[in-house]
């Protein structure tokens, strides 16, 4: 889109009666421009606060006009997000946010549609909508808050809770296996997957901006802390003392190096990732795998997304970002293509075409 002039038409060419054209200069925004007048009512200490602030900061840095942004959420603690944004917003029903967001985007592709969801909302009740939205590649920014618990209903295990997790509905531990959001996204033929941590503010802003720039469905898993019902669930990897050794921030085109001494990295051994130490056994930085987020083949991305502590560091940053045809663009292209060829321009043209007869 042009940097200075934006034409936003809610209606298509000839049949337009109302054409809403907004012509305004790209403004400089600060994060406060995206804050609504509503009091934020998440628990003190909840990771959601940080995500809200970093999303607003990312939007300001992207110069997004608030009136062009639509935030669609489902149900759950994170889905309250919508009310705190001074943009257009739709707080919908449990699990269906991605379908509703798809409708918004397809109806008006000029809008920037952000979908806020949680591990229960997206992966349990909304699992079907989630995978199909990803598969279709509708241009949405999906922020998946993963706290591995049902918070709003006060502490039941979720589809991402660890095997054996004790909660109010699993007093003896769960007997089921959790989804891994990255694996599910990539398995659903996702073209963008990134991961961040609520308390890593800069990383959040960077990743959200990348997700917004990506055309197509982008999924960002946010490892988010529920201070009341699942406190410290991510602490093993996120606490300050260990995070350098237990996480790796992936950057496209850069070697996959991590560790407090920046001397650990990956090489391929067979088809598996192997952790090596630079300087040991003749390994130099040149031997370390370079991250290619844009590689169409998802094999390595899947391996990176699936890395879990303690076997591996947990991958953060943009793991996969591959260009692909975007649903809403393809649909518009088809419409434009058909309309260029057809003689049918209004309803009556259709109605009097074909097998008709006239009574005079």
């Amino acid at each position: 889109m042009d940097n200075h002039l934006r034409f936003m038409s809610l209606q298509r060419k000839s049949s337009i009666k109302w054409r809403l054209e907004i012509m305004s200069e790209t403004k400089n925004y600060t994060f406060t421009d995206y804050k609504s007048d509503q009091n934020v009512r998440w628990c003190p200490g909840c990771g959601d606060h940080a995500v809200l602030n970093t999303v607003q900061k990312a939007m300001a840095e992207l110069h997004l006009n608030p009136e062009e942004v639509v935030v669609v959420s489902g149900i759950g603690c994170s889905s309250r997000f919508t009310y705190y944004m001074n943009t257009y917003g739709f707080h919908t029903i449990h699990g269906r946010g991605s379908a509703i967001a798809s409708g918004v985007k397809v109806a008006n592709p000029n809008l920037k549609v952000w979908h806020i969801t949680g591990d229960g909302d997206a992966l349990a009740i909304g699992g079907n909508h989630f995978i199909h939205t990803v598969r279709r590649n509708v241009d949405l920014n999906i922020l998946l808050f993963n706290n591995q618990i049902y918070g709003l209903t006060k502490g039941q295990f979720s589809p991402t809770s660890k095997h054996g997790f004790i909660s109010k509905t699993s007093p003896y531990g769960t007997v089921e296996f959790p989804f891994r959001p990255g694996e599910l996204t990539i398995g659903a033929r996702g073209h963008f997957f990134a991961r961040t941590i609520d308390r890593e503010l800069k990383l959040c802003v960077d990743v959200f901006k990348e997700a917004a720039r990506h055309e197509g469905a982008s999924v960002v898993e946010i490892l988010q802390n529920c201070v009341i019902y699942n406190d410290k669930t991510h602490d093993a990897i996120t606490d300050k003392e260990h995070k350098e050794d237990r996480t790796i921030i992936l950057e496209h085109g850069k070697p996959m190096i991590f560790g407090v001494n920046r001397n650990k990295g990956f090489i391929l051994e067979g088809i598996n990732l192997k952790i090596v130490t630079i300087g040991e056994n003749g390994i130099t930085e040149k031997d370390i795998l370079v991250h290619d987020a844009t590689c169409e083949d998802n094999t390595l991305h899947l391996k990176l997304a699936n890395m879990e502590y303690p076997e591996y560091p947990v991958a953060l940053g943009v793991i996969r970002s591959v260009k692909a045809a975007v649903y809403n663009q393809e649909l518009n292209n088809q419409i434009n293509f058909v309309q260029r060829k057809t003689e049918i321009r209004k309803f009556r043209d259709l109605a009097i075409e074909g097998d008709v007869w006239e009574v005079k």
Partner: protein
Amino acid sequence: MGKSSKVIEVDRLAVRFSGDSGDGMQLTGTLFSHTSAIYGNDISTFPDFPADIRAPQGTIGGVSGFQVHFGQGVTTPGDLTDVLVAMNPAALKANARFMKPGGTIIMDVDSFDSKNLQKAGYKTEDPIFEDKLEGFNVIKAPITSLTREAVTDLSLDNKSVIRSKNMFALGLVYWLFNRPLEHTQEYIRKKFGHKPAIMEGNLRVLQAGHDYGNIIQAITPSFHVSPTESRKGIYRNLNGNKAVAWGFLLAAEKSGLELFLGSYPITPATEILQELSERKDLGVKVFQAEDEIAGICTAIGASFAGSLAVTTTSGPGLALKTEAMGLAIMAELPIVIVDVQRGGPSTGLPTKTEQADLLQALYGRNGESPLVVIAASTPVNCFDYAFYAAKIAVEHMIPVILLTDGFLANGTQQWRVPEDNDFPEIKVPRTNQEPKAYKPYLRDAEKLRRDWVFPGMAGYEHRIGGLEKDAVTGNISHDGPNHHLMVTIRQEKLDRVANYIPDLEVMGDESADILVVGWGGTYGHLLTAVDQLNAMGKKVALAHFTYINPLPKNTADILKRFKKILICELNLGQFAGYLRMKHPQFNYCQYNKVHGQPFTVHELAEEIINQMEA
């Protein structure tokens, strides 16, 4: 044409084409109905096809039928048929029960061999005797062999020859009803223009069938059904599903909104989804969703973004859309939900018709969740009601359920293409509020509708959702009295739609003691039954509802004029129960049937007489 002198003039007739599902009977029936409609007859058709996609050949399960009723004042496909075309023994076996006494049976004797007779369940070699059909005028035509003979020098493969024998039957039926061949000839030329041999074959076979009529004219009378005087205009045939799709197209044009359909395939509603998928020429956006829930949810999203949003389904799908309908009610967004009713509950009878989703449409949601319910009553007025469903949804900012049914969906009638001013504009309730001071739940005084503001409008950014709102600010509110107020407002908003819909009319004998009441797709059968009884001098009146929620304002005024009210519906009495609740001061009698088939005029007339005498 060298006709015999034995041409019988009649007002209306029905013909049923039946054969194996591969015999092309749907096409044959469609071509016949086109020719009749062009000739100037009113028509009403109903296809009766097997639920299985490919049932075994020659069996009763694989019989496909298509009935065309044509003539003056035709409003139903006809209870019984005057002429039956049976391409094989199974078709005869399955359809003989639909014959009018003394009617004509055309059978392809070539296919009545022992093997096929056995497959159809006949125990002897003489199906006419076995099924006691001697009282009928039976034309035993060697259709297969005459078809072969007609194309013998064209070196067509056997399959192409066999596939053209439906044209023989059609040619013969045209002879029987004194109909011109031109329309069908033109169709054949267009369809097979790129395959000259097949085109020539079909043309010859059609002619051969017609010529065969001339050969047998000495023993068979033919019929003539005069055309009806019609209004000037352009006409075409239309079935209920296509009419629904087209009604939305006009609504989009009249509102200046883009049409968005979110849907999931389901019998018998799928054709609407298919038709609108083809309408990229008119800019329709169709989203075939992963399930019924996503179908309506994408539509709700599109409505929020400013499209004319629609979702289409049948009963089981409506059940799945329940929660999302509640969201649309709460968010006060316009959306039309089409339910093409079929036999239920559960998977039920997917290809058969029923009216048993009424209470689901009215009440099948959590909380106090009123929405508008409209029911189309003929295949072609599905167009009108789709249009008005969209108009009400948009102008009142309220979800509307449009009920049709399997009978309307697949039934065809001739339809006059509307002129530009036959339908009103749809006024989209854009806001007059100032930016920055915008309140999403501020209402207009008359309709109580809120303003529709689309994302993209600077200064009007706002949040809506499924949580209860403060009546003034639109912010989330858990306040009890405010909730009471909002529930009341949403009901009042629905009630006020009654100010914008037409009054209920009385048809038939207004001085009658008995009022027959129906709603939705039973209209044609009820009207015909009441007309017939009136013609016999019986005092009977009819009131037929298309606006169900809210009811027309004069409903009670009409009901109170009659001593007896008989409600006829294809369920166990859902509308009767609804009227008992809305207007408990009256006594209601019921006639109900759930055979998966429409009423017959005959049974309705009989029941009405019974009730009059009771």
